[in-house]
């Protein structure tokens, strides 16, 4: 009896906060039919926003992938003083408001910024342009790969790498042939998570974007513009693309987790 009541409470809570919003996105997106949906998604400004979102993620995710591998190698394979402080530093972007993540780059590169006048004199524009979007995205997604890789690489220990070294493998060969294949699920999941966040980021990107249509407008910013112009159906149609991205991320997380459960490796902590 009590058990059934608890299950009912839990499902009602999740239904209210998760299922109803998911259904609502789709219902709003298709409220005027499939043709209207397709028109909204294929509209030139929406396509431009999609392209910019893809470009931003394609630049930010590889940068943080390299960083994540380097950070995990240092943290998981070696002991050194200040390691806890370094891990806290890597986590810091999780704790900082996305708005602040955007603000700092305005203060650095904006017209009244520390480096802004110098950059303007040399013809570079960082904020209200694509480089600013990429920087802000790199900032907010910095911890993801490192966060997923560190526990997996710690759990692997160092014996396999040491054996590879003794058999004559070089450092890079050891990394690419032994460490990364062993940590591939953690690596893959870190990339999936940072990609989802990179494509969906709103606050940080909103501050540095300047909202120039067709130029510095990513998909989430395009959703905001459509919504504020009372183009609700179009806003939800574009939002449904981002919702599908989120659902794919959840499925990938579940698959990776079941894989690692089967192989007896504890999944990394969640962000």
């Amino acid at each position: 009896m009590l058990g059934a009541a608890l299950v009912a409470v839990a499902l009602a809570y999740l239904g209210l906060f998760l299922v109803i919003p998911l259904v609502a996105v789709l219902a709003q997106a298709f409220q005027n039919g499939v043709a209207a949906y397709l028109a909204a998604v294929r509209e030139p400004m929406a396509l431009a926003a999609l392209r910019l979102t893809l470009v931003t993620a394609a630049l930010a995710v590889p940068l943080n992938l390299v960083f994540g591998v380097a950070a995990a190698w240092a943290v998981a394979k070696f002991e050194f003083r200040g390691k806890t402080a370094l891990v806290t530093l890597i986590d810091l972007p999780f704790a900082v408001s996305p708005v602040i993540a955007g603000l700092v780059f305005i203060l650095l590169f904006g017209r009244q910024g520390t480096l802004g006048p110098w950059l303007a004199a040399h013809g570079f524009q960082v904020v209200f342009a694509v480089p600013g979007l990429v920087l802000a995205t790199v900032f907010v997604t910095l911890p993801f790969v490192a966060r997923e890789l560190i526990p997996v690489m710690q759990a692997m220990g160092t014996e396999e790498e040491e054996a590879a070294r003794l058999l004559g493998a070089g450092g890079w060969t050891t990394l690419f042939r032994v460490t990364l294949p062993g940590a591939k699920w953690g690596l893959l999941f870190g990339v999936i998570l940072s990609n989802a966040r990179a494509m969906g980021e709103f606050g940080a990107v909103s501050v540095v974007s300047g909202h120039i249509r067709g130029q510095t407008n990513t998909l989430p910013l395009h959703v905001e513009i459509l919504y504020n112009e009372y183009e609700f159906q179009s806003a939800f149609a574009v939002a449904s693309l981002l919702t599908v991205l989120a659902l794919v991320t959840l499925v990938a997380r579940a698959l990776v987790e079941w894989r690692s459960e089967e192989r007896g490796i504890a999944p990394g902590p969640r962000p």
Partner: protein
Amino acid sequence: MTRRHRVLPGFGLSLGFTLLYASLIVVVPLSVLVLRSAASGPGLFWAAVTAPRVVASYRLTFGASLLAALINGVFGIVVAWVLVRHRFPARRLVDALVDLPFALPTAVAGITLTTLYAETGWLGRPLAQAGIKVAFTPLGVVTALTFIGLPFVVRTVQPVLQGLDPEVEEAAASLGASRGQTFRRVVLPALLPAWITGVTLAFARALGEYGSVVFIAGNMPMRTEIAPLLVVTKLEQYDYGGASAIAVVMLAASFLLLLAVNRLQAWTARATSS
């Protein structure tokens, strides 16, 4: 430990690159923020962060974040309990769905919750008939923050609950404890460190949240304006000093919470290993 240094290469390179990259992306930009707000002098800084509109935004941000974190504290423990201890259809699907607020872009969450809770929305209409307004009120802010904080308590409590040996509870029951007593005296103390960690994480996340809140809040100064939005407003007015001052206070709160979470996680690890 020294042996490892000799056998595995790349310590200097990986650590050096990590420090350089993290400094360029995180440390230098955040330092510029702190220096910028310090440059305006203590008088201006104090005036900026104690202006009535700013104080009202802090009160709303901290209050709504705390309330949302506590709501998730209560329901999160129920959800974690049900996912670990009960078998029901589609349990794995429900388990995977819990992470939705992590994965769903905040702007999508924002417009969806606003549409649902507006007076014409699926949930807003019946609530309005009952005399409860959610969208464009502080309650709307709490609703959005509850949504984005939902996974934290579940995901911190769940593994601890999984590791909890049911034999201990059976022993308590066989010694004559009722189900309520067993839960209060045996299960809850074991979950406490993880629960506090989860609530703190949800609170920290809510403090900085922007995208899901700005749509549903209505953004009326003094009433439904959150602190991150005020930072954006000041920036749009080219008041860099004011924006920086508000942001530095938020940053300090986030940093303290991050340190607290690190301590709490160490406590949780100790509590679960013993």
